[in-house]
């Protein structure tokens, strides 16, 4: 592997890792702060992708090919959706054990898949890359790199920074962190913990939906697309340390690198490498790279 190819592969790894982070950050928030094992997280990603597909024709006339408008609408819808979902289902799960949480959220997967099937069918769909991002940058002799992928990475980085700033530097972030370590005490100090949890859950859902919408033009949109993402996201959350945004970012990049170079260098065992990585890290640090609380 010469240097140019190596650098392109590094770019691939970072780019894949950042997208993973976007999905996994929502999962780690919900898992770490609310203590809920949310198997339906992959479904939110799937819903996001289908939302991008469904909204694209409605906003095609807007500026920027309607892409920013569709993203904004999607995020607003998903916050409302997450808020209601927490209210109706998830809020009953905090006091229950993990098995019941798994049952409930697994049930939600089935419901969402079926609703998707009824509403939009089982076909594979494509979402066009917005015109102003459709170009590509030449890399080396034969290959070009799509601008949209670079744009995606940029957006993921921005979201990561924003998340970090909110959690580490704001009053809401402080309350969220406090709520994760001691729910009752935060409540006693006069913080409406129910509302806080509802906001965190809605934000987690919004992150997954946003990731799905952002990824739709490059991944295409198909039934069951969420399940695959869900498993890798759980790996990221476990490696990074449950509830840690910083850990999720680092773990996503690690997984991105292991997956990318595993596929190229040792394709025979590429399928298990990510899980081997997880096992090794758990042996070394059972709490994940960064523990919280």
């Amino acid at each position, binding site marked *: *592997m*010469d240097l140019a*190819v190596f650098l*392109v*592969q590094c770019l*691939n*790894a970072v*780019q*894949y890792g950042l997208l993973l982070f976007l999905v996994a950050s929502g999962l780690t928030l919900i898992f770490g702060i609310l203590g809920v094992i949310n198997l339906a997280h992959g479904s939110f990603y799937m819903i996001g992708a289908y939302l991008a597909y469904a909204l694209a024709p409605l906003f095609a006339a807007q500026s920027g090919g309607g892409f920013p408008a569709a993203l904004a609408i999607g995020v607003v819808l998903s916050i409302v959706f997450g808020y209601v979902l927490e209210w109706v289902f998830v809020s009953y799960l905090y006091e229950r054990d993990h098995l019941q949480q798994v049952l409930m959220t697994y049930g939600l997967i089935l419901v969402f*898949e*079926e609703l998707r*099937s009824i509403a939009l*069918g*089982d*076909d*594979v*769909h*494509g979402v*066009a890359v917005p015109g102003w991002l459709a170009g*590509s940058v*030449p890399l*080396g*002799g*034969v*290959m*070009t*790199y*799509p601008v*949209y*992928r670079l744009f995606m990475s940029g957006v993921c980085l921005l979201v990561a920074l924003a998340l970090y700033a909110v959690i580490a530097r704001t009053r809401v972030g402080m309350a969220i962190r406090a709520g994760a370590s001691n729910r009752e005490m935060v409540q006693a100090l006069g913080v409406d913990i129910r509302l806080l949890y509802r906001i965190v859950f809605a934000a987690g859902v919004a992150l997954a939906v946003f990731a799905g919408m952002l990824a739709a033009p*490059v*991944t*295409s*949109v*198909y*039934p*069951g*697309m969420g399940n*695959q993402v869900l498993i890798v996201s759980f790996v990221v959350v476990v490696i990074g340390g449950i509830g840690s945004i910083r850990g999720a970012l680092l773990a996503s990049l690690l997984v991105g690198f292991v*997956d*990318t*170079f595993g*596929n*190229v260098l040792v*394709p025979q065992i*590429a*399928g298990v490498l990510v899980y081997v990585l997880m096992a090794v890290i758990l042996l070394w640090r059972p709490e994940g790279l960064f523990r919280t609380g």
Partner: protein
Amino acid sequence: MKHRRNTLATAFLAAALCVAAGGAHAQSKIKVGLMLPYTGTYAALGTAIENGFRLYVQEQGGKLGGREIEYFKVDDESEPSKAVDNINKLIKRDNVDVVVGTVHSGVVMAMAKVARDTNTLLVIPNAGAEAVTGPMCAPNIFRSSFSNWQPGYAMGKVAGERGAKKVVTITWKYAAGDESVEGFKEGLKAAGGEVVKDLTLPFPNVEFQALLTDIAATKPDAVYAFFAGGGAVKFVKDYAAAGLNRTIPLYGPGFLTDGTLEAQGAAAQGMLTTLHYADGLDVPKDKAFRADYGKAYKMAPDVYAVQGYDAAQMLGIGLDAVKGDVSKRNELVAAMEKARIDSPRGAFTLSKAHNPVQDIYLRKVVGTENKSEGVAVKALADPARGCNM
């Protein structure tokens, strides 16, 4: 005394039931078990196969071999771990006379095993796993579709004839992908080319970027890819986005561009693939089939609908030969083996291993159609390695 009377009564009852069952058997409906994916990634394929099957039965007045058809449906969810339970529901609970299914190769392997053990008639309307018409072949197992080897071999020949000397293959690391790539290699070798690198990734991963970079660094004359469904859409789009399609032609079996062209859009235009079916075939039967299918289901048929239709045709030929008496299994099978099936894809016969001997078409993507560019290999038979029948 009382006990004895009970025994007697039971015996009478049993005898009466036997007579009743026997009598009913003669005029009763033929029970067809459809084990297909009705949910999940392959749901659309399962529906198309059932539509095709039902269309043929309707054209025969709802009867095959003079007897009406009753359907029993099981959703196999494309889930190999549930396959044995699911086919047993049809065989043991519903007592079906024949099982039709399925799409997923892993599921079909389990089905073939059960069909062999219970001697149930099985018609496979899609899954191309070579083993079921190879080492696992049996008199009671038929296929109306293809083996993974067939389109691969034809594409290899075409690629070689078009001057590809060094080719890279890429697929998911699973049986269907491996079998398709093996077929391609044989065809390519026969036409003077060779495969310099096999790239694989775990099923159903769709993160192709690393392997695309690898392809760009290898600079082959052509790439052969086996993917289906969402993976096929993403691969073809990623290949184009990486700019590789401008210098390195991308070839594949028809599944790479079948039912996915709307989603692939501009990225797939001009691509060449091989399959046993194509758009714009000059086959009168196909024109009639397309018109009838469109009328019945308000949508255009695809290759899966054709395979379902032909599964019903094959079964119909067998049942006609025995006048609907499924107990005459040997004669039924013999008639199916000798059949010449008047398929929308063009007439085909069956090999000794019960796999279609059929023309494989070269197709070119134009708009949202896989337009026929003529026959790539005429009357191609699967080698059926390992079948001693």
